[in-house]
């Protein structure tokens, strides 16, 4: 597709075989628009338009199981969300708890891991490949693996109990006290490599001379880390943290399959609540109103992101 677009515009002057076509290097005014057209149209059709329809439906009663009530609802859906829906607040609080816990732990472990595999040591290439490998694993596969590990009859706990360590417990996933950390651990397993890969990429762009100079000046490794490594990594850390926070906020795959939002709804995030409202309760109107609220929260995040990434400059 790209080639077709590019070819079209370069064919503007008549082709003369053998003759240098200097003018083709000049910029026809339409060319950039032709190049962004595919991406732009796809995004208009499948991101912008659905977003507008979300705002439209959020003002409607639109429930497939109660069609006789369908019609304009004004702000009723929003009133209900903020005044009469404890599930919304519970899911919002859980989302916040989930995002903060996951992102901070992933960042800390990912940073540590990147620092370690950035060293020179025997077996580094294979160690990198192994520790990064869960990055490529899907949410559903993570669930599969950790279900096996957590299940009382197939899990690690059973073998430890067989050997006399600990007790034959019940499933950590059905206990409201342990399910949060069980889910956090499973997601950590998959999420840490993301940070480790991005931070490692940035670590490799720090000139080695800086450390040499600092070392000559008597700075120990901890001070080198604080004064050289961290300032250099700052931008990458901020951006990857924000991206990851949004990503974790929207992470439905793992929780939907691992806990189904349970037990007793204690692991229901806001997007999971939206999906359940929309597709199990068929209450599209209310689901889209919830979506709108989530958008506002995400909008706040993206403004923060734009500020921090110093959007608008051509200096990139």
């Amino acid at each position, binding site marked *: 597709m790209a080639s077709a677009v590019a070819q079209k515009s370069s064919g503007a002057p008549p082709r003369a075989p053998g003759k240098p076509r200097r003018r083709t290097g000049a910029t026809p005014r339409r060319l950039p628009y032709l190049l962004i057209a595919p991406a732009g149209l796809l995004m208009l059709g499948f991101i912008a338009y659905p977003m507008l329809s979300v705002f439209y439906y959020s003002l409607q009663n639109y429930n497939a199981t109660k069609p006789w009530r369908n019609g304009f609802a004004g702000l009723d859906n929003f009133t209900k969300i903020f005044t009469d829906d404890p599930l919304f607040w519970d899911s919002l609080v859980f989302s916040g708890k989930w995002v903060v816990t996951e992102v901070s732990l992933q960042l800390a472990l990912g940073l540590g891991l990147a*620092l370690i595999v950035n060293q020179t040591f025997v077996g580094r290439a294979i160690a990198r490949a192994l520790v990064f490998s869960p990055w490529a694993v899907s*949410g*559903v596969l993570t669930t*599969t693996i950790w279900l096996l590990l957590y299940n009382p009859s197939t899990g690690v706990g059973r073998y430890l109990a067989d050997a006399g360590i600990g007790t034959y417990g019940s499933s950590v996933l059905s206990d409201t006290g342990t399910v949060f950390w069980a889910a956090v651990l499973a997601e950590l*397993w998959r999420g840490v490599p993301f940070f480790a890969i991005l931070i490692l990429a940035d670590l*490799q762009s*720090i000139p080695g001379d800086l450390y040499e100079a600092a070392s000559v000046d008597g700075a120990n490794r901890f001070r080198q880390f604080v004064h050289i490594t961290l300032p250099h990594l700052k931008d990458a850390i901020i951006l990857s943290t924000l991206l990851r926070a949004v990503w974790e906020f929207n992470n439905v*795959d793992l929780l939907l399959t691992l806990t189904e939002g349970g037990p007793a709804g204690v692991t229901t995030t806001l997007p999971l609540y939206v999906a359940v409202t929309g597709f199990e309760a068929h209450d599209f109107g209310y689901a889209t109103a919830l979506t709108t609220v989530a958008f506002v929260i995400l909008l706040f995040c993206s403004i923060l992101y734009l500020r921090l990434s110093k959007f608008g400059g051509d200096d*990139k």
Partner: protein
Amino acid sequence: MTAAIAEKGTSAPLAPDGPATPPVRRRRRERAFDEVPRWQIYLPLGLYLLFTLVPFYWMLLFALRPAGSTSLVPWPMTFDHFDKVWNARSFSVFFQNSALVGVCTLICTTLVALAGGYALARFNFRLKQTFMLALLCSQFIPGALMLVPLFQIFKNLQMINSLGSVVIAETVFQLPLSVILISGFIRNVPYSLEEAAWVDGCSRFQAFRIVVLPMLRPGLIAVASFAFVNSWNHFLFALMFLMEQDKQTIPVGLSTLIGADSVDFGALAAGGVISAVPVVIVFAFIQKWLITGFSAGAVKG
């Protein structure tokens, strides 16, 4: 150019998490540029490897040992579970569907993002800032929250139960990041190289193909493999848009094994292994490029 970045800087002695102990510090003064003690590398690395690899091993164990066995090594080995999942649970069909969706998403994403990224990197045009803003903002628009309206769009297009709907949805949500990444990679290729090619008589497209494209290889591999792995792994679009069983993808098939009334752990583990194989292969190939690809200008402030 990007490979050079990757090779450099690896000898920098950095502190792993813990602060240096006094004896270590004293030794440092004697040697100007010394190395991290080995145990500070191997101990945390070993612990982390355990955390990473035990879950994988557990899945392989259940996939390979006979049902009912409680042995901790997969011996005697059996492939019954794979046979069952591949044939009786139609994973062969899911596998084909997932592969088709993955490859189509990869091609669409890369081509569209290449065009858009080139425009952003090489031209100034009036809508540039708007386009850039749209790209940055849409990274924060989650597919999970768009399921309801997207479902209605695809219903109107009569594309429910068609793999095309999933390819479009995956491509659209990969695009913003891909365009931004690729435009970063293209900016790293000096414009003067292209201009030199024009002087030599190349058209803009020829110059791009001959001069720029080869230099984009690490970046393109990173973006393309990203698109493939993400769409291979993605669960929600396929779950919602594909109702017929013979249209479903691997993650959906896996989730039905999880949701079965009495879970067959051997079959579940074998399904997990099957779903992991392609991404593991892709990952093994691209691991090196992934890091250089990102350091070539991906996450810049």
